[in-house]
């Protein structure tokens, strides 16, 4: 199939809007890395940078929405072009949300910096953040190269993130029961873990969207899910 439109300005519109997604994705990736890094190193300055950077991400989402609306109104996109527009709208919304979670981690970092550390959890959180960031990177690569296989692969990896979250959930419960002075820190850390787990879910949605963009249909809903914390009883953690 010919990749170019007869109206070359149409191609430039579509390219520009996709470039904005890539840019937004890059910023969100950096926010995840810096957010979890600031947490691990209790680097308040870096955390502040992440908080300030979220504004840029939000502005990009708004611009993507405007450009998408404009393209729909002026070009009446169909088929693959229509799927690009529908997808960028959803991708932008998910990226914005992931960015918000990263910002939230940075916010809690400034509070946690004042408290004594909870052993072990920071490294797991960093690994979780790293995994989600890799999933996001692969999703964006899959988006750029229209690689449904890579996107499908991302779908399978969300359960690793879920499992890390399960482990942390139990760990935090244990710490809190051992010593009530840990409760404040553990509550904040648990929200952070939950936020990273939610990031994984959003990235998974994005990967599904890339499959839709590439193939024209959503992937079948049979991917493994690993979040079991809804069933963990607080009274007797293992």
């Amino acid at each position, binding site marked *: *199939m010919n990749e170019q439109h*007869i109206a070359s300005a149409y191609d430039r519109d579509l390219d520009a809007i996709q470039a904005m997604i890539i840019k937004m994705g890059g910023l969100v990736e950096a926010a995840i890395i810096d957010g979890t890094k600031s947490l691990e190193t209790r680097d308040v300055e870096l955390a502040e940078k992440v908080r300030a950077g979220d504004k840029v991400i939000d502005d990009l989402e708004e611009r993507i929405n405007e450009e998408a609306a404009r393209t729909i109104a002026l070009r009446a996109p*169909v*088929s*693959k072009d229509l799927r690009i527009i529908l997808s960028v709208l959803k991708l932008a919304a998910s990226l914005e949300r992931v960015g918000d979670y990263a910002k939230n981690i940075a916010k809690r970092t400034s509070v946690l910096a004042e408290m004594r550390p909870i052993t072990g959890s920071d490294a797991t959180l960093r690994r979780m953040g790293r995994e989600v960031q890799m999933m996001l990177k692969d999703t964006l690569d899959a988006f750029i190269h229209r690689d449904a296989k890579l996107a499908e692969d991302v779908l399978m990896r969300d359960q690793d993130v879920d499992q890390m979250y399960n482990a942390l959930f139990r760990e935090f419960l244990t710490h809190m029961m051992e010593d009530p002075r840990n409760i404040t820190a553990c509550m904040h850390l648990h929200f952070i873990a939950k936020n990273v787990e939610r990031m994984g879910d959003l990235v998974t949605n994005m990967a599904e969207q890339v499959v839709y963009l590439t193939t024209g249909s959503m992937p079948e809903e049979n991917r493994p899910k690993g979040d079991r914390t809804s069933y963990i009883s607080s009274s007797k953690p293992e």
Partner: protein
Amino acid sequence: MNDMRLIERAVDMNDIKISARNVQVYYGDNHAIKDVDVDIADKTVTAFIGPSGCGKSTFLRTLNRMNDTIASCRVEGKILIDQEDIYDPRVDPVQLRAKVGMVFQKPNPFPKSIYDNVAYGPKIHGLARSKADLDEIVERALRRGAIWDEVKDRLHSPGTGLSGGQQQRLCIARAVATEPEVLLMDEPCSALDPIATAQVEELIDELRQSYSVVIVTHSMQQAARVSQKTAFFHLGNMVEYDETGKIFTNPEDPRTESYISGRIG
């Protein structure tokens, strides 16, 4: 929210009006239509789209033997309407065209009164027994053409005095006056302004209640708006034929994709 709309859009592919099998059309040595197989449903708007010269109009014209008027044109294969072969030597093309009406690109009213434009077909086919009968047929056709209210007070003024959009609706009224079962439309809106186009499209949607409508259009957006089924023609082949929503969101063939999204086919 409104699932009536889904039912309304549904096409009953068990109710086939026109069946074409292995249709080939030649203009002299030029093989214009290659091996087209298609089933066209009753009470459905079917759109033919494709670049200029792809054969969509040629194929449309085989459906009421309009190509018979072109000396160099040869049609092979089978075209059945209601299971009857329309190329059977016993079929009278004039009778066939009463059953399979046609509306052309440019409104072409006869240089007669509005009334006579519509009355002409029913008269020559002997559909009216009396003047009162004919009056009734004319009114019904003009109402179906969604133009009655605009012309009822000047039925005896010339049809050519109407605006372009009104003329086209008059031609549609003329086409439905003989109670056809199939209505072929060859770019019915390409000479009309957007408002007249919208009126004709609304009319096409209403005509769907009673007829099998086949429309050739250069405007893909028009095909998307008015049809339930769309066929894409390219270089004499029918490349893809599917539900209109499917064609415009996720076509199977890369050539269809290229064409509908405005890339070079």
